[in-house]
C-alpha cells in the first residue's frame, strides 16, 4: 500500500482559501541512474496528480523526473462546501494511488 500524508484543514469558513499539502511515498526513479554493474535503471515516476473537491477537479499537475523522491506538493483551493477532497496519483508501470480528506465548511 502506498503511504501518503495529507494535510487538509478539518474546518474552514466558506470562501476561505485553504492550503493543501500532500506527500506520497515513491522513489521517482529518474531513468538516468545506473546500477553498480552499469545497467540503466528504468524510469519509474508518478507523472500525474489530480485533486477533486466533491468530484470536481480543482487542481492538476504533471510531474517529470526532476521532481524529488517522495513527491511533496502544496496547492490552494477555495473552501466552498463541506465534503470530500480526493487526491489521485498515476504513474509509470500502472502506478495508481488515491487518498481522501474530509472538510467541514461553515
Amino acid at each position, binding site marked *: 500500500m502506498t503511504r501518503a500524508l495529507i494535510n487538509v484543514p478539518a474546518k474552514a469558513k466558506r470562501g476561505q*482559501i*485553504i492550503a493543501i499539502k500532500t506527500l506520497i511515498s515513491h*522513489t521517482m526513479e*529518474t531513468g*538516468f*541512474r*545506473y*546500477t*553498480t554493474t552499469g545497467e540503466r535503471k528504468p524510469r519509474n515516476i508518478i507523472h500525474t496528480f489530480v485533486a477533486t*473537491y466533491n468530484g*470536481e*477537479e*480543482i*487542481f*492538476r*499537475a*504533471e*510531474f*517529470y*523526473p*526532476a*521532481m*524529488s*523522491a517522495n*513527491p*511533496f*506538493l*502544496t*496547492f*490552494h*483551493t*477555495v473552501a*466552498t462546501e463541506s465534503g470530500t477532497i480526493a487526491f489521485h496519483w498515476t504513474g509509470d508501470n500502472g502506478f495508481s494511488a488515491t487518498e481522501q480528506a474530509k472538510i467541514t465548511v461553515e
Partner: protein
Amino acid sequence: MRDSMDALETTRRELLLAGTLMLAGAAAPVMIRRAGATPAAMKAEIAKLVGEAKITQGKVKLDIPPLVENGNTVPCTVSVDSPMTPADHAKAIHVFNEKNPQPNVISCYFGPRAGRATVATRLRLADTQNVVAIAELSDGSFWSASVEVIITLGACLEDNLI
C-alpha cells in the same frame, strides 16, 4: 527490498570510487558528468510551450534557496500575482531547468476554484543552474521569473553507491 540490497553490496571497486568522489559526504566537483540538458534545450522546450508569444519578466515569484544543501531535494515555491477571478487568472505554472538531463520539472494547472496560484514542491537539480518558472494567464500572456541556484551535491547524475 531492491533498494536496500543495493545499499548493502559494496564491492571494492565501489569503495574506491565512492572514496574518490567524496569525503564524509562533503562536496567535491564530480569527475564524471553524463550529457544532460543545456540552456538551448530549455529554450526549445519553453518555445514549444509559448509558441510565438512574448514572455515578460514579472508577476511570477520563484522562491528557491540560492545555495542548497543537497540537489536531491530542493524546496521551491512558485506564486503568481493574480486576482484569480474568472476574468483574470493564472491558468498554469510551468517550471524548467537548464542542466538536468531533461528540461521540464513540473506543470501545474489551475481552475476557477484555485483561490491562489501558488504551489510549493521539491525539485531535483543536477548542477548549479538557472531555474525558470513560466506562468500562463487567462489572457494568453506569458510571464516568467528565473533564479540561479548553486548546487554543491547534485542529483540525477550521481549514483547512490552508498
